[in-house]
């Protein structure tokens, strides 16, 4: 028997394969396509203090092996998430992580505080890739100091394990990872989407109203893997690897680079049952290779190079 379970920050996850925020709806949508109880954890769509309507159309375009999205963080707001979504998720024996964001530090504190007494929520994942309106739209997460400030404020407000989700749109990720670790993050998620853009040559206009958009999917996998490897070398807290994972083999690359767990994002949009396959493929690999615990291969290349 292969034991795929992982313990991170005091929580036992059945396995290390999670559904990434924004690619699994609020979780309820996924139940028609996959056994929610099989996945390691469900990370819900990012919520803010107030509902947010998101960006106008178009919101999605395909790129070679990737997706550019400009959803604009549309969500029902924290109150409706707690009143309408959490009671539905209560029916399933699944770890639930809620992804949160705000327009400013007070917004982050406000949304985090709402989960103080919500036992159904195992942890919060803080999206640090949101544009900091006051600083001209530069993501909060590009600045180690602001990232740390938000992280400690969320830890204090929620009293929950806090996972800081880092942006890849930086030259060097290690100082940011270290800053949030010191600020009390229980883990880091690496990475969010890469900034990209598309142009409609017929209209000679940017395809998206906001010009830039977030790139995800297999196209970003090698870049994400490098960020995970760099982060795993820089911090002691668990690293959750994200970026273009579609198969067990992809997930194993991240685990060998040092990830304690992984998230599957865009692949859910192509095949809403894909996480089940990823878990089975990891298990098969372990069986074939005589691995009884993923610890044996986790971070195996971390120190070597």
């Amino acid at each position, binding site marked *: 028997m292969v034991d795929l379970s992982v313990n991170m920050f005091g929580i036992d996850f059945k396995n290390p394969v999670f559904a990434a925020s*924004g*690619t*699994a*709806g609020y979780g309820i*949508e*996924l139940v*028609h*396509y996959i056994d929610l109880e099989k996945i390691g954890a469900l990370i819900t*769509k990012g919520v803010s203090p107030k509902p947010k*309507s*998101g960006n*106008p*159309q*178009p*919101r*999605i*375009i*395909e790129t*070679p*092996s*990737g*997706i550019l*999205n400009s*959803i604009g963080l*549309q969500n029902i707001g924290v109150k409706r998430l707690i009143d309408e979504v959490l009671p539905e998720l209560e029916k399933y024996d699944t770890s639930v992580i809620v992804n949160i964001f705000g327009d400013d530090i007070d917004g982050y504190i406000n949304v985090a505080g709402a989960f103080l007494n919500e036992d159904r929520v195992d942890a919060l994942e803080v999206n640090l890739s949101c544009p900091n309106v006051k600083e001209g739209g530069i993501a909060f997460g590009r600045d180690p100091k602001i990232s740390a400030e938000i992280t400690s404020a969320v830890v204090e407000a929620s009293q929950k394990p806090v996972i800081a989700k880092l942006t890849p749109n930086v030259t060097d990720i290690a100082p940011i990872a270290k800053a949030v670790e010191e600020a009390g993050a229980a883990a880091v998620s690496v990475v969010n989407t890469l900034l990209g853009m598309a142009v409609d040559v017929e209209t000679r206009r940017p395809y998206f109203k906001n010009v830039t958009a977030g790139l995800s*999917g*297999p196209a970003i996998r090698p870049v994400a893997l490098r960020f995970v490897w760099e982060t795993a070398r820089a911090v002691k807290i668990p690293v959750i690897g994200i970026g273009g994972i*579609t198969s067990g083999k992809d997930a194993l690359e991240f685990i060998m680079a040092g990830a304690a767990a992984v998230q599957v994002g*865009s692949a*859910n*949009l*192509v*095949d*809403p049952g894909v996480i089940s396959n990823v878990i089975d493929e990891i298990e098969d690999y372990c069986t074939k290779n005589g691995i009884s615990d993923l610890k044996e291969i986790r971070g195996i290349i971390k120190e070597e190079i």
Partner: protein
Amino acid sequence: MKAKILSNREAAPGYFRLAVSATEALLRGRPGQFVMVRGEGWETDPLLRRPFSIYRFRKGMEAVEILYRAVGRGTRLLSQMKAGDAIDILGPLGNGFPDLPEGRRSLLVAGGAGVAPLISVAEAKGGSARLIMGGKTKDDISYVFEDERELGIDVTYATEDGSFGKMGTSISAMKEEASPGDTVFACGPLKMLREVERLSREMGFTSYVSYEERMGCGTGLCFGCVVMGAGGEYQRVCKDGPVFDVNELSWKDIEDID
């Protein structure tokens, strides 16, 4: 869900009919529902599935048929696939058309490939629905001749160049035929749907439109496919639609992209 292609042929220049083996669940779908499709072997490029309405439920053959126009990369790749090839199909998705009220006349108003979700409505409704089929030229409408024969439905054809049927659009033909109290089911370009909305207000009939939007997942996961609802909240076309009562949408907020 893996399925087999039973046939894939060009039924009119640029328009293809694709028949694929279907599960029970898919065959129980409602007219107006759709499927998300990708070819096996597409690997990760193209990455996303493509949405297509269910054109015909072929219950006897345990198959469904899709009608598609080859417009871009995915549909061109699809058009090269052959009987026996494997295809990945997810569905039935979306809400589908409501049942038609008994004893009322219904008009099915189609613009080009927008006829796709309407033929299955016509099939289900037998003689009580009339199809108004519009296109730029005869090529845009001629594949429907087969269905007209097989299903014995009443069709009014209209072409903009006058090469077949009435000269004009499906909207101009609809204006001649519609009367207050009718129910209109429409699918086609956004411009056409706007006209349906306007005329239903002015002439006093009930209209349902099958709305088209770029989709990521087709299953409600990504919020990529939204349209502004009358209540001021974005609706997911794939989950809350694709069929909407025209009064459910906020038409002034809908921009013409594409």
